[in-house]
């Protein structure tokens, strides 16, 4: 024994791992096997138990219900939907409604949040204080409460459609929503859309060319006005060449409500306003921290070149601040998307609301929840992927 021990002590580090719990490597492997095994066992148990319970309670499983007739109506939809359509189509309507409020919400919250963030750093005392009061107020009240608030404000303060406020010819505001006229569809609109795309592509080329020229010669080119001209002008030109075929679909009061035109419903507006004003407070803080993270020397150096404060902010500070701003911004965008599921409380037919109805009519709860999770996961991962790509794009290029 003694010689053996001495031999071990002399021969260190030991070249082989002994199969003992005292060996850290063996221990690590065993722990991992046990944990993975435990997780798999738990997953198997849960799935097995669920299926067994569903079986004993004679609850049908599977996704066959998606092809059955939905039978319920949906308040607002981006695509045509009637009760005779399938559950699948109803769920697609829900996904589109969720995306609609999420996309518009992300854009508006970014704009509002950026302005608020900059305002908090403004040298104007009143503006800076107003912005900080806003931020502290909004982000310390639960979002659900704010949604109820906006919904009540809209439905209680506005009158019924028969006493609607007529803002300008054809535009009405009532507790049924904001009703406005829309152009009647005409074949020339699709050509105008092509012209619009062409305008966007052309303005990208113009701005690249202008940048190269400025770098080479120093001569500036009015990129912004040229781009606006291209993007708006080309479709307008097509429209005028086609003889300006514009007829409007005017809203008129018939029976209980307005007919014709299009409308933003109180539910959509309440949800959008709630999400935007709430999230903008968080975005404002992110923007502020990003700007503060840029060293003071950058401001001073740019100032020494004689640039105006607004130019410094736009061309020197914000591009650098973006590197700090973008990663936390991603999670705010994800928050908007996920928080939009609170819509169910105020009656906006988003994915969760429609999936809830579906799983109540069909009793396919597990399938319904799985679909909701899959959709939110897909949307969230897409946003993350895009933001990661954008983050790489603006990251500091190290030479």
């Amino acid at each position, binding site marked *: 024994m003694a010689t053996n021990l001495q031999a071990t002590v002399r021969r260190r580090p030991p070249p082989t791992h002994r199969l003992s*719990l005292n060996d850290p490597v063996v221990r690590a492997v065993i*722990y991992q096997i*046990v*944990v993975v095994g*435990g997780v798999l*066992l*738990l997953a198997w*148990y849960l799935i097995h*138990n669920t299926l*067994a*319970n569903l079986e*004993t*309670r*004679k*609850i*049908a499983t599977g996704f066959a219900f998606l092809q059955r007739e939905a*039978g*319920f*109506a*949906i*308040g*607002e939809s981006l695509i045509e939907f009637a*009760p*005779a359509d399938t559950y699948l189509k109803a769920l697609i309507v829900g996904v589109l409604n969720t995306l609609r409020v999420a996309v518009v919400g992300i854009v508006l919250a970014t704009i509002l949040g950026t302005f608020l963030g900059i305002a908090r750093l403004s040298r104007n005392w009143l503006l800076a204080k107003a912005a900080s009061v806003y931020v502290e107020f909004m982000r310390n009240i639960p979002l659900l409460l704010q949604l109820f608030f906006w919904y*009540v404000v809209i*439905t*209680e303060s506005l*009158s*019924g459609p028969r006493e609607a406020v007529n803002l300008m010819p054809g535009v009405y505001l009532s*507790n*049924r929503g904001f009703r406005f006229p829309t152009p009647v569809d005409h074949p020339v609109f699709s050509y105008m859309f092509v012209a619009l795309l062409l305008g966007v592509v052309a303005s990208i080329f113009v701005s690249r060319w202008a940048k190269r020229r400025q770098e080479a010669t120093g001569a500036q080119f009015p990129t912004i006005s040229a781009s606006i001209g291209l993007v708006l002008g080309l479709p307008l030109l097509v429209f005028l060449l086609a003889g300006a075929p514009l007829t409007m679909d005017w809203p008129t009061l*018939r*029976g*209980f*409500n307005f*007919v014709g035109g299009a409308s933003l419903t*109180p*539910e959509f507006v309440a949800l959008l306003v709630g999400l935007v004003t709430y999230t903008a407070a968080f975005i404002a803080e992110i923007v502020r921290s990003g700007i503060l993270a840029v060293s003071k020397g950058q401001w001073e150096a740019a100032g020494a070149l004689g640039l105006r404060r607004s130019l410094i902010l736009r061309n020197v500070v914000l591009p650098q601040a973006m590197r700090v701003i973008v990663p936390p911004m991603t999670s705010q965008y994800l928050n908007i998307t996920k928080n939009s599921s609170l819509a*169910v*409380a*105020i*009656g906006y*037919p988003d994915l969760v*609301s429609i999936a*809830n*109805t579906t799983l*109540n*009519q*069909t*009793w396919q*709860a597990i399938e319904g929840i799985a679909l909701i999770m899959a959709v939110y996961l897909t949307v969230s991962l897409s946003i993350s992927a895009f933001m990661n790509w954008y983050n790489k794009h603006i990251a500091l290029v190290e030479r």
Partner: protein
Amino acid sequence: MKKFIGLAAGAAVALVAGAGAVQAQGQSTLDAVKAKGFVQCGANGSVVGFGAPDSKGEWKGLDVDVCRAVAAAIFGDASKVRYTPLTAQQRFTAIQSGEVDLLVRNTTWTLQRDTALGLDFVGVNFYDGQGFMVPKKLGVKSAKELGGATVCVQPGTTTELNLADYFRANKIDFKPVVIEKLEENVAVYLAGRCDVFTTDVSGLASVRSTQLPVPADHLILPEVISKEPLGPAVRHGDNRWGDVVRWSFFAMLEAEEYGLTSKNIDEHMNSPNPGIQRFVGLTGDYGKMLGLDNKWSYNIIKQVGNYAESYERNVVPLGIERGINKLWKDGGLMYAPPLR
């Protein structure tokens, strides 16, 4: 090693707990209820007259009385009930998962719920139908005039489907506003966001008389667009428990037929009528057959009352007449099989 032991212990506890849950499935709810000493009853919570707590926090209503009757039959004490307020969406999960023993939440008996949802309906304690309520100032007299109207409706109900069916059948269109909570729905209807509020006529009457500031300003339209037999439901396959709930309710109908009330049942203890003798438990072993005390039906009537008393107490104040909910011998649909 400690961590490992903890993990193993956790997994073992989870497995044992799971096994316990599965075992509880095999046992009748009747035994489980007797063991724990009370009935867990899934009720509405918002619809006054059917299932809602009053200003003192005591649950009252036609549905609640079924729960109390079951407790009286099992324990001889109608107060041994605990209530779980459930929304339209939560109710089926609650009964399926065993969170409640009994669901009496103005729930419509349909084929799908009886089969695919894993429920058993044991009877009908209120024959209802879906209707529409509108503010009188709209000047609407019939549901046929509702073309283009905006309708407030709760999700997860047969109401939502009947609504779409009715408008489709009559080729008129409408906009639904779907909000889960009843109170929110009523608030939005009052604010004028919707022209119409729809649910079962009993629910409309209850809302109108208890939740609207001026009930007389609102009109329930004459059209009743659906059949809504509302009844208590239990989990599918638990026949002994289903029998107890079914016969507890039938006892209330039977007592009305015999003219037995909570006031006079003691005077009938020595009645020569063999039907009444069976009912109060003097002859026969009918309680034993259900797995209960032979005094079960006496206790129900003594403590809860017969169906007419329950109806008078809960539903008449809402302004809903007995109508088709009268006993069969008075021209209604309420009919209990012979209690023998």
